[in-house]
């Protein structure tokens, strides 16, 4: 029989993540909504609570807990603040290529700082020409002695202005079929974080543009083999990126359902709580079914990832399902709240705006269907 239960220890991880989210993350949400800026205190809290260390091996100062634990943490943090879950998931997107493809020197240099939050990471692949087809990027590199010179621009980069350790993808000036992944430090000459985006949701999670003007990168910062950089970034995006979005979406689904249940039990209509009305029960039942189904898809993929089995297709299916379900749940949550659902003092308005950003992040639902379609037809 298949065991679908979390272990006692995993339940404790959930409890720890929930305590952290409710006591340390929730207090920053109003500030994030008001200013759209990343609170310094939140970054310190994430580091102190070891949230950045979850997937980093113990020998490099991490916890080595793997991907189910990561998904649990993201779901619980997303339940309180999807914006915080998003920034956390993208920190891991910058960390994973170093864990998987870094040399011993690179791991020793970067991972201990990334585990404590002293260093903050991101991955920068997307450009104006697109993100889901990275072969179309225009950022280029050429060799100059032992160094690489990179020119180009990246857009829609989560943590662009917060990260100081960035994994970037560039195309060879000489051979457009060759790509390199580099570890870029923000103090390197020629690096600049430029425009800050103002998003409809995920407020307080930084998104922006990067510019590389004759950015000089020493050969020690080449990540993986020269010319094989596409594999480095895509392996992280396929599993870490999509898996992270599943965590954000599950958290948002849970938040929408909890807010709806609370409101439906308190709002009196026709002399009784609206939770007694079949039409409301039907909506909440759909939320519950979607959440349970999404968890099965997401945690199954995470357990495959923990076992070292390729899981990017499973995560594509889970990403599609959970983000679409979160968008639906946010709409239904607003509907259940009636007129109150239009008032910003009710969290469902934030959930509705966050849901709008959730879908396109890390690959749209259409792209997920392309991947799942190829998987089914293969």
């Amino acid at each position: 029989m298949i065991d679908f239960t979390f272990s006692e220890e995993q339940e404790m991880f959930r409890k720890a993540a929930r305590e952290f989210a409710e006591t340390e993350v929730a207090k920053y949400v109003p500030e994030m909504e008001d200013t759209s800026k990343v609170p310094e205190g939140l970054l310190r809290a994430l580091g102190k609570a070891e949230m950045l260390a979850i997937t980093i091996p113990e020998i490099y100062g991490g916890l080595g807990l793997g991907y189910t634990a990561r998904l649990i943490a993201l779901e619980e943090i997303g339940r309180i603040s999807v914006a915080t879950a998003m920034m956390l998931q993208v920190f891991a997107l910058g960390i994973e290529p170093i864990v998987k493809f870094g040399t011993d020197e690179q791991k020793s240099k970067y991972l201990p700082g990334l585990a404590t939050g002293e260093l903050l990471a991101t991955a920068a692949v997307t450009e104006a020409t697109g993100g889901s087809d990275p072969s179309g990027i225009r950022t280029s590199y050429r060799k100059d002695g032992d160094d690489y010179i990179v020119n180009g621009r990246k857009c829609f980069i989560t943590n662009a202005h917060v990260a100081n350790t960035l994994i970037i993808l560039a195309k060879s000036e000489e051979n457009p079929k060759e790509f390199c992944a580099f570890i870029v430090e923000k103090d390197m000459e020629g690096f600049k974080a430029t425009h800050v985006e103002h998003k409809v949701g995920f407020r307080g999670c930084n998104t922006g543009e990067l510019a590389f003007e004759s950015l000089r990168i020493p050969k020690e910062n080449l990540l993986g083999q020269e010319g094989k950089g596409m594999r480095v970034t895509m392996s992280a995006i396929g599993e870490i990126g999509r898996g992270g979005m599943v965590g954000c979406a599950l958290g948002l689904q849970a938040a929408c359902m909890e807010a709806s249940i609370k409101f439906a039990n308190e709002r009196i209509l026709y002399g009784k709580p609206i939770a007694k009305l079949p039409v409301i029960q039907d909506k909440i039942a759909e939320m519950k079914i979607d959440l349970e189904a999404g968890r099965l898809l997401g945690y199954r993929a995470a357990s495959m990832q923990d076992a070292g089995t390729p899981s990017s297709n499973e995560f594509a299916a889970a990403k599609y399902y959970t983000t679409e379900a979160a968008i639906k749940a946010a709409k239904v949550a607003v509907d259940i709240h009636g007129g109150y659902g239009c008032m910003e003092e009710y969290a469902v308005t934030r959930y509705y705006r966050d849901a709008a950003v959730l879908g396109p992040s890390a690959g749209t639902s259409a792209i997920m269907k392309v991947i799942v379609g190829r998987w089914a037809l293969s």
Partner: protein
Amino acid sequence: MKIVVCVKAVPDPKEADKIKIDPETKTLMRGDVPFVVNPLDKHAIEAALQLKRKYGAQITILSMGPPAAGNIVKECLALGADQGILLSDRDFGGADAYATAFTLAKGIEKNGEFDLILCGMASSDGATEWVGPQLATFLRIPVVTMVNEIHENADREWLVKTAWEDGYRKVAIRLPAVLSVARELNEPKNLSFSGIIKARKKEITIWSISDLDVSPESVGFKGSPTIVGDFGTLETGRNVEFLEGTAEEKAERLVGILIGSGAIG
């Protein structure tokens, strides 16, 4: 220093609305509400951890409850305690505060020497505030309740501050002693992932009735002198009444309603 922290697994107070009372046995029906560490006991654990950081200490978590309470003991180990003991036996079931304190005292005696016993001043489900003082009585050591400050030192004579309705008092105590602590004492730390990892190697010992020097008649329901006579449900609700007339008439009517309801005298 050897510290024993007594903790209770209680139904999660956040889901208190799901907890019912069995009309026959007059005991709590937890349903599917999960156990959590009794919130005030977390302050006792934090106090023990602070003492450990200052002076070094061996912290033992002691709890009485069903096997499922083992998860709660494990959680306390993840917070930084060193070892856990769970007193678990069907005969311990249905215990009131007196029988609970008696059984815990027997567990403490079996565990050996101690310098300090800490517990939360009340549980979120029973809320009698009796276990700490009764524990001290059984162990024949001093007790201070509602402790919100501990001025300890390396000697065995400490000063503790305790809250009263109209002020506070400072009490000098000599160890070993029982302190039942209030939430104002400290700010408990959250569970941490690394704490959970460290707890993998920490042992939980389970003692049944045969491990303690007690008779079945002295523990659990049989050993409990408390009898629940009756209970009722407090009905609460809201009424809306629109007052008619001039401002003066409405004010007069409002004052009458407030006096009639007892809100003002």
